[in-house]
């Protein structure tokens, strides 16, 4: 039976949790804790080896080095017996930031964009700076400011993601005249466990609309409803440190501790978003 290859375009800034998501997912697959199965042992997991060792020792993985690009190709069998190959990339979030700041889509990104019809965006809501401007909070101090007095430009989070997607869509040759059906978009709001109690009770799409409203509007305006989903994920299930091992985490092992929040708000396995992606990629 021929195999369909599903490369994923994984987009996330530094500290967004891309590496941990992939590492824990692979552990889940290895330990048989998913309805997806590894058909055979993956050929080459080098790119995730260092992070895997850290996580299994109950520590955070070190940051992926700048310019380090790699991928792991996972031969999987779905519950229905379909053979698919999931390709998980890894790279430094700084490289993604450079894309927007330099306004250049390098060859690697260009080819990655064109080969992947499933785009996964990882955003860590807790790190998003809250928008405070004169329209949202009126204060009395207004001082005339000249252009050169201005602090260096810091993009609003929603605007940054909008610009990045606009650039990638252009490179992929996707027009926005009609709503987009391909590429499909999965937004993962990561490190769900570090959110407040109230935030954790929100549906992921609603949380995105609250933290990055411009981007939420951009995707609502431009994607078909069936082609875009917003999930929450917590790959680790708790906060880990880079220095000290969490012994309880070590004992339980990574594979059983991550979880996802489905678009409807229900908790599920970390592989949830991947199942959705593979289900529709056939």
């Amino acid at each position, binding site marked *: 039976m021929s195999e369909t290859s599903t490369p994923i375009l994984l987009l996330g800034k530094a500290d967004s949790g891309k590496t941990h998501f992939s590492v824990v997912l692979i552990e889940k697959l290895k330990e048989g804790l998913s309805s997806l199965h590894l058909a055979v042992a993956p050929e080459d997991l080098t790119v995730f080896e260092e992070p895997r060792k850290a996580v299994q020792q109950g520590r955070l993985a070190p940051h992926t080095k700048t310019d380090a690009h790699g991928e792991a190709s996972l031969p999987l069998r779905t519950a229905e017996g379909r053979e698919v190959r999931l390709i998980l990339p890894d790279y430094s979030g700084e490289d993604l930031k450079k894309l927007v700041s330099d306004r250049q889509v390098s060859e690697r990104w260009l080819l990655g964009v064109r080969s992947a019809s499933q785009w996964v965006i990882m955003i860590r809501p807790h790190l998003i700076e809250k*928008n405070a401007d*004169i329209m949202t909070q009126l204060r009395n101090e207004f001082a005339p400011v000249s252009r050169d007095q201005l602090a260096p430009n810091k993009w609003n989070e929603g605007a940054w993601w909008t610009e990045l997607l606009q*650039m990638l869509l252009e*490179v992929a040759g996707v027009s926005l005249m009609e709503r987009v059906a391909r590429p499909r978009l999965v937004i993962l709001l990561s490190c769900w466990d570090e959110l407040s109690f109230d935030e954790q009770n929100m549906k992921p799409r609603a949380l995105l609309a609250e933290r990055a409203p411009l981007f939420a509007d951009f995707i609502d*305006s431009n994607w078909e409803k069936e082609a875009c989903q917003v999930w929450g994920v917590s790959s680790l299930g708790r906060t880990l440190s880079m220095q000290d091992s969490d012994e309880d985490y070590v004992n339980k092992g990574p594979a059983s501790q991550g979880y996802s929040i489905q678009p409807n708000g229900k908790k599920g396995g970390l592989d949830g978003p991947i199942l959705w992606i593979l289900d529709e990629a056939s």
Partner: protein
Amino acid sequence: MKAACALTEYCFAPELPCHMGCDDHTKCQYWKAGSGADGPPPDASAESTSQMHGHQPFWTGRVMGLVDALPVVARNPAMLVGILGAHDAGKTSFLLGLYCLIVGGKTLGGFRFAGSYSLLAWEQLASYARYSASHPASFPPHTPDSTERVPGLLHLALRGPTGRLHDILFADAPGEWFTNWSVKADHPRAAGARWVADHADGFLLFGDSASLSGPERGTAAGNLIQLMQRVSGVLGSRPLGFLWAKSDVTIKDEIRSRVDSVRQLVHSSSFVRSVSVRDPVKHSAILDSVEHLVKLILVGNASSQIPVPSPIFPQDGFFSLRGSA
């Protein structure tokens, strides 16, 4: 066989620049692969004698000029909104307020943000209004007068209630252009104002409540009335919204009614809104005025389409075939 780049469908060198950003397309590894025999694209280790700078998008993200607006208008007939008013009337602050509201997730009635190819420019504008530890918020500085003949254009894409994508270009021009133009229609320093007047699909005209209530209010009222007269001469059937800017400031009744009488006289089908950045109650009017203008422009475009008569031949449909004889 004509030489072509291996990246078929994406790279159209040499008619267009190399998609990978090579200075010389003939040295690009994808060109080399394509112009040879059929075969797979080269791997990354293949030697390339040309630096691939990478693909740059067609927009810079900055305020657009006519040339960089071309790809935008090529995809869709864009609506040009002329923003008219004297120096310091609040035009740029209005745009800043509009963008900040949209960033905060506000919609314009049934129209929702669908992107912008001027995000860098909008963000720079908004950065004045954002609070941070190092600086308080402020209003943007004066849009500088210049000898440019065309104003900078700010792009905004909106998805409408029917699912249609609308591209809007706001022409943000220095107030001096309009003041010059109102005095003398062919003033040498008013080329930009004339350009806006000629090409806009709709207008937002700003009355500055602050100057209309201050010590120079006599002059301000006179100037505004003069500008309104000048606009009326070129308006035609295009929609116009009259905005009382900085409406947190109260204008004396006599001045307000004088200006409004002129408006009713020369811009009889215009609509009126009171907007303010300082007064949150007036924020929704910022969104509403743009939404309303967009709707009027769309209606105007629809009704200006000329129906094409087509004869009916009941005896034989073949006679209705429209083709060259």
